[in-house]
């Protein structure tokens, strides 16, 4: 399986604090991979480096063979990496459909002059943007909320709007930052189905950060474990679960526990 995302030697420092220390990570084409680790291990920092919000101090990030570190977030999104946020970052005062339409921005072209003159190109594009946004809301299972203000939707629906918005950018890799946070068990079961549909039906690879181990073990084919900014283990669910370093990172050493 060719790697879609290849990260090698990724390091990040804030002042004197080393947040990431030579992290290697790969996500294969068509894979569902997870990044796990205790609180403060640096998972979200990895995401922020990948998506261009943080500039790593060293290391390389390649998406489909192309080096993307140092690029601005909007350019990385255009190259095919989309994300959701740990704490929902919807445009709360805009409708659900307008939120999803944001994802189409980087795949469309009409400018201010097209808009003012209402050129045929602009009208065609507007129609397509709305139709596609509606399709993405339907894909995540909430077509009925499209005109409702995003901030007023139930939490689980807001999460889905974020998914739809990210998928609307037509990514090849979708990064999900704690997609299960705040969801009940029924919603988490739906989430597993949705992750698989994204990969199987859309052919989009998925990398997720998650705290719910049940969910991680159920959905991921490859797991990378971080602790204190270093990779301490990787492999499939069974291998990671039985790795003594992982157990130590999560539960502490046996003598500590006593």
């Amino acid at each position, binding site marked *: 399986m060719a790697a879609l995302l290849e990260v090698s030697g990724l390091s990040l420092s804030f002042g004197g604090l080393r947040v990431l220390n030579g992290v290697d990570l790969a996500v294969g084409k068509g894979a569902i991979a997870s990044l796990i680790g205790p609180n403060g291990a640096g998972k979200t920092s990895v995401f922020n480096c990948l998506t261009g*919000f943080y500039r790593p101090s060293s290391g390389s990030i390649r998406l489909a063979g192309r080096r993307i570190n140092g690029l601005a*977030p909007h350019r990385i999104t255009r190259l095919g990496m989309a994300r959701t946020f740990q704490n929902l970052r919807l*445009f709360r*005062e*805009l409708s659900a459909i*307008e939120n999803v339409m*944001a994802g189409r921005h980087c795949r469309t072209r009409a400018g201010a002059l097209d808009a003012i003159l209402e050129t045929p190109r602009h009208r065609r594009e507007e129609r397509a943007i709305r139709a596609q946004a509606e399709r993405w809301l339907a894909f995540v299972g909430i077509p009925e909320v499209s005109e409702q203000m995003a901030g007023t939707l139930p939490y689980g629906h807001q999460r889905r709007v974020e998914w739809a918005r990210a998928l609307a950018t037509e990514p090849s890799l979708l990064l999900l930052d704690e997609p299960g946070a705040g969801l009940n068990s029924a919603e988490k079961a739906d989430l597993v189905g949705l992750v698989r549909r994204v990969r199987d039906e859309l052919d989009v690879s998925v990398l997720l950060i998650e705290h719910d181990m049940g969910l991680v073990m159920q959905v991921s084919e490859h797991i990378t474990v971080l602790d204190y900014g270093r990779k301490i283990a990787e492999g499939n669910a069974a291998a990671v679960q039985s790795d003594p370093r992982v157990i130590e990172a999560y539960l502490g050493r046996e003598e500590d526990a006593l």
Partner: protein
Amino acid sequence: MSEAAVRLGRPGWSIRRALGVVVLLAALAAVPGFANNYYLEVLSEAWFYVLLCLGLNIVVGFAGLLDLGYAAFFAVGAYTAGIVTLRLGLSFWLSLPISVVAASIAGVIIGGPTLRLRSDYLAIVTLGFGEMVRISVRNLAVTGGASGLVGIERPTLFGYHLDSIGAYYYVFLLLAVLGVVASHRLENSRIGRAWKYVRSDEDAARAMGINHAMVKLAAYILGAIFAAIGGCFYAAKMTAISPETFTFNQSLLILLGVVLGGRGKIPGVILGALVIVIFPELFRDVGSMRMLVFAISLLLIMLFRPAGIWPEKWR
């Protein structure tokens, strides 16, 4: 929203509403038939401020950026018209495209350095920019120094010399209508949505592939163009312009119209512009106290309607 409304790009646009607009425009167009020069003068100024407020609304309302130096763009337009006609001896109509270019450059000059700034810092820089432009035109020879430019020739359109207040009533009414249409179309377009995304959550917008710097620059440039085109016709109407028209107070007055009416909401902004022009006129009888009465009314409005008289629904 129905498919037809989407195609028109006008959400909620019904036949009844279209009819209402036609009747309103016909009524406004009929005004010079019976109104005296005083009313025409006040209303022309009102239409002019509608255009300015709509332009500033792109920056302040749609994109959520503060701008305390907006009069500078108005000055760019007015002085471009003055220089093009008086100094270069060219047709007034040439000043329109030239002022659009000049305003775009001015928009980039003010927008570029301020892209990383937020709220209070942005306010200070834009205020400084406004003063810089005013002080520059006050001291340059080409802009006529403190006395400004006098004797700007009034333009001719299809053989009709625009030299009466009635003519300028129509000019500014037309500009205001064009401003409304352009604002409305921008608001419901890809770029208009991008302004709202950036206003709502800049990082989330960037993660969606939106170049926030370009989007903000576009807001400054488009806002500047509104003011510059208005400024050209202002110069033509007044035939004389001086730096003291483009003070900080002028910027503040335009901002007041936007905030008072309801930033981000086009009908609100129109209302705000009308209020700032017509209110002081209504209180003329109060004599020297009229600005005090005006100020108290503004305070009351902001106290009871903090988001503006006619706000965008979410604020």
